[in-house]
């Protein structure tokens, strides 16, 4: 029975089927919402309601495209990278609980697991840029690696506040501790820093320099066509979804909400709100230059994150004395 439960969770909810559907809807939402910001309409005709099947149509189209491998590139690794990217992008999902019951991997150190697995992604970016055997991809891969590694520092620091407030590294416990007050109200600075770092980790505008097509075509993904490109695209959106699920779990009270909806529905609603906010940011801001990006990470966010840890420690001491 246990094995069967695990398989159901991995395959359906919150595993493969769920994340695929969720990502599908997020891609569609981005295209429609961003279009509205830009005074456009977005997909309209494919599918009965507002172009809902457009994403499916594009996916099928990509399947039909020729996959070109550059002549000097390592063929096996080149073809494997997109699959590895999607795999690594989806790994954090194992530890994210959508409900007290619906979680694949329970552990007292699940937060550490997520942080560790999150940090694997820069390797994917840098390696892809290198094996493409292309000047532009190479530059893009290096830039991506610098950015992703740079922003991990403030991200990890800001998550220390969460650990302090909940006295635990188990994500289920972290969420349970937010049953009265969400952590965003107890550690607002940490939440802000985490949100900005998360945007940078997901390579979203205004931090999407690695795929700045204005200068170096498509950055580290330049050489990928057809379904390989489709898989990288998928990995990008999977990271967006998982990033939003994480921030909901860690700061926005997870599955807690008025009992008009089942808990996991609240989880999804909150993370959808975060995604809408992220999409609107894309519509409003230009992208930041590489050196400015690293400046922000190292000179602004990291010191602020350290300050936020101290502030949270102080707060936790006060709360501990009062007896929350």
């Amino acid at each position, binding site marked *: 029975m246990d094995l069967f439960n695990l398989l159901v969770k991995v395959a359906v909810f919150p595993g493969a089927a769920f994340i695929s559907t969720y990502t599908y809807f997020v891609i569609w939402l981005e295209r429609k919402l961003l279009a509205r910001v830009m005074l456009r309409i977005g997909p309209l005709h494919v599918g009965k309601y507002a172009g809902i099947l457009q994403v499916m149509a594009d996916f099928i189209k990509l399947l039909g495209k020729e996959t070109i491998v550059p002549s000097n590139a390592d063929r096996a690794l080149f073809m494997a990278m997109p699959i590895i990217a999607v795999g690594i992008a989806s790994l954090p999902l194992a530890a994210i609980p959508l409900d007290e019951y619906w979680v694949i991997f329970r552990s007292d150190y699940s937060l550490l697991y997520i942080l560790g697995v999150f940090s694997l992604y820069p390797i994917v970016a840098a390696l892809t840029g290198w094996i493409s055997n292309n000047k532009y991809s190479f530059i893009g891969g290096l830039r991506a690696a610098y950015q992703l590694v740079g922003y991990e520092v403030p991200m990890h620091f800001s998550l220390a506040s969460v650990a302090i407030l909940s006295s635990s590294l188990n994500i289920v416990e972290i969420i349970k501790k937010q049953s009265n007050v969400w952590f965003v109200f107890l550690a607002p600075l940490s939440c802000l820093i985490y949100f900005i770092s998360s945007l940078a980790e997901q390579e979203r505008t205004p931090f999407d320099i690695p795929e700045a097509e204005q200068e170096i075509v498509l950055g580290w993904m330049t050489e990928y066509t057809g379904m390989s490109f489709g898989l990288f695209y998928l990995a990008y959106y999977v990271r967006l979804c998982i990033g939003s699920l994480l921030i909901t779990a860690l700061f926005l009270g997870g599955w807690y909400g008025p009992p008009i909806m089942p808990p996991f529905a609240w989880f999804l609603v909150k993370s959808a709100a975060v995604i809408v906010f992220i999409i609107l940011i894309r519509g*409003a801001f230009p992208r930041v230059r590489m050196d400015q990006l690293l400046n922000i990470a190292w000179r602004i966010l990291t010191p602020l994150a350290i300050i936020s840890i101290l502030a949270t420690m102080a707060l936790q001491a006060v709360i501990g004395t009062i007896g929350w």
Partner: protein
Amino acid sequence: MSSLLRVNWGPQHPITGHLRFILDLDGDIVVNAIPEIGYTHRGIEKLAENRNYLQVVPLVERVCNIDSFNVSLGYVMAVEELMGVKVPERAQFIRTIMAELGRIMSHLYWFAIFGVAAGLFTLIMWPIADRELFIDLAEMVVGSRVTYSYFTPGGVFADLPDEFDKRAAKTLAYFERRIGEYEVIFLHNKLYQLRTMHVGVLDSRKAIELAVAGPSARGSGIRMDVRSDEPYAAYDQLDFEVPVEDSGDACARAKIRLREMKESVLLVRQALNKLPEGPIRVRVPPILPREDAYSRVECGRGEFGIHVVGQGSDRPYRLKISTPSFRNMSALPHMLKGARLADLPIIYHSMDIWPLDVDR
């Protein structure tokens, strides 16, 4: 001494348009930038020698098809100077109105491309949508949307239709509010300022030496505008300001163009109010005398100089067009030295260089 990376940009590149840059990069810094132009050279000056001087009007318009009102105005003024023809007042005012509408259209197009340079796609959609309103105004008067052949030696082709007043007033009122929104959303956007301030600084001495023209020069503190230096059409009877900024960076140039759009709105309103009655055209002789004339107009991009040499026939003996983009382009290698690769699109587009202008 680290080795330099030679990168080729264009002519098929998402951001340069039909131009090519050969860049020598040291890491992220441009050490040398060599522009290669001529991809859209159509030989307009040579073609003009084979055409009747009236047929040259549509030809000259295609030099800068985004702002074709101002360019054809320059040519037409040169021909009128050659022949010693005086254009009636009503036609001068109509010319001013359409020239200012052309300027707004040109600046809106520039604004769209400039937004993309920094990576904000919203900023290509909004100005292009607003530009449609002005294209509709032009279509109301002339019948075509982008290249018009509306100005003719001696005046204009047709009078303004009756509904033009009301329609123009509505469009201008809407647009004035819109420019305010653009300023708040884009110019006061902190990230935008981060990308455009202190980027691509052109000091005024260098700008004068390199003969930079138009808003690109006014951004470096040089107060030059043909409309106030050498008023033509009806500009001597209208009040307007010439915006000048001192910092010489990309942000200054962007600010100037936004303010110029505001000034254009005021100019069109004034001109519509003061529009006199009268004929819109006078007859012109069929041949160009054996003389030459040089006329200057302030196009959206800067100063156009049109030099026409006549030979006693109906064809120009020589037509020389000195375009602002050509002048600004020759200043660009100097500005790009020492800039970061990511700033290249911003610097290039802040100078408002139009490849068709450069090449003719």
